[in-house]
């Protein structure tokens, strides 16, 4: 019995170690592609390589905020009929918002790092930049609001708040399509002459999207796992307090 439990534990450890090693290897490969294989950009030179980090993070932050939105809608749908499932969905919503904020922060940091040498300024209040900052602020306020309230009530209120955050996402996505902005036009689905022409650039871009997506989803999974354990501890403590009365 004890042996079986130990073996199960060891297998789980082994799989996590292999998994994390695979993620790190993938990220290293993507880094190699972006820094050494892809050619330097014709006009901007090496500074344009930041694009392989900036754009994938921008794309992926939508993914994680969407996970937060879908999970929040599920919390609202299940909060009466199936509280246990709503609790699980809430863990997904929290993890989605946290990982999304990390990705959005990377977008906001790498953007100015590119803007300073290319535009000559760190920041400008153009539509794309402003709406991205607003998106980041909304989700930071979502995370703050979660800390200000407690219990099942907080989950419902946070889910409602998340719906409002999701309303800003389409505005952000369309910002450099609706307005003429200083921010470069969309790489994909924009003008016919925009986009990546060199196949090595496209490959480096693809590898980075994949690597950061896998990294983000791994962190998301770990965060959900921790949150589920925290929920179980909180539940057990509440039960113990009730039994003690």
């Amino acid at each position, binding site marked *: 019995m004890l042996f079986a439990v130990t073996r199960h534990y060891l297998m789980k450890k082994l799989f996590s170690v292999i998994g994390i090693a695979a993620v790190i290897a993938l990220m290293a490969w993507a880094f190699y592609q972006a820094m050494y294989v892809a050619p330097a950009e014709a006009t901007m030179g090496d500074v344009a390589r930041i694009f392989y980090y900036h754009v994938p993070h921008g794309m992926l932050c939508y993914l994680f905020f969407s996970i937060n939105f879908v999970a929040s809608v599920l919390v*609202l749908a299940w909060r009466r009929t199936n509280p246990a499932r709503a609790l699980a969905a809430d863990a997904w919503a929290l993890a989605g918002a946290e990982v999304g904020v990390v990705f959005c922060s990377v977008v906001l940091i790498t953007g100015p790092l590119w803007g300073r040498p290319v535009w000559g300024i760190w920041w400008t209040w153009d539509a794309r930049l*402003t*709406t991205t900052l*607003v998106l980041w*602020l*909304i989700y*930071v*306020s979502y995370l*703050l*609001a979660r800390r*200000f*309230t407690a219990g*099942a*009530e*907080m989950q*419902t*209120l946070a889910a*409602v*708040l998340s*719906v*409002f*955050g999701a*309303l*800003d996402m389409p*505005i952000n996505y369309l910002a450099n399509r609706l307005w003429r902005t200083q921010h470069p036009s969309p790489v994909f689905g924009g003008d016919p002459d925009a986009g990546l022409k060199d196949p090595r650039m496209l490959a480096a871009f693809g590898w980075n999207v994949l690597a950061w997506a896998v990294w983000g989803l791994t962190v998301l999974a770990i965060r959900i796992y921790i949150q589920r354990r925290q929920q179980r501890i909180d539940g057990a403590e509440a039960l113990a307090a009730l039994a003690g009365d």
Partner: protein
Amino acid sequence: MSVATIPSTGTKASWTRLVLTHLKKDLRIEWRSREAINSMLFFSLLVVVLFSMAFDPSADTSREIAGGVLCVATLFASVSALNQAWAREMRHQVLDALRMTPSNGAALFLAKVLANFFFVSLVQVVLGPIFFIMYNLHPLGDAWLLALVIPLGTWALVANGTFFAALSIRSRNRELLLPLILFPIFLPALLAMVLSTKTILTGDDSDPTLLWIKLLGGYDIIFTTVSLLLFDTVLQAE
């Protein structure tokens, strides 16, 4: 729970009656105390004076910044009033009583928004002329458009503010939480409001005023609809 379950033929009429009853109650309470309007008025007047001290505006710069100052002054002033709007219902468990009545949350919400909209608009009507005098304003664009921009912006502020005040009422530090949630979500509307006011005052045609007004109108419609749909959830959250 909802009005529709009441066996009556005039479902729509009863919804309107609910809104009117709530609205009348709110207006009467405010008329008797005048807490919200007086404090908002004094506070926004202070902000306007502070900004004019901080920037020492000439005629040209005042046109540039006046819209923003007016919007921010109303924004800060409204937050305190919006916090009070629901805190008032907490006394004597009025909010719990409202949750138990067979009324619907959306009606309650709409009445509260209308009442707050009325209060903030009243403050703006008083503040507007003072503001024009103190900043030596003389609009160079189509001034009548202001009659469209200001109410639309105020509605955006009040609808969101009332909603998030109800959301934050049950948290610790609720006075602090409301601006933390409200400001980021209100930002697009603030931007549209400030930019359209600026174009109207400076008469600068390079920025399309109508686009910003349309954006503001769209924002109002979307956010009011979502608030109306979700308000019952917030009210009944436990």
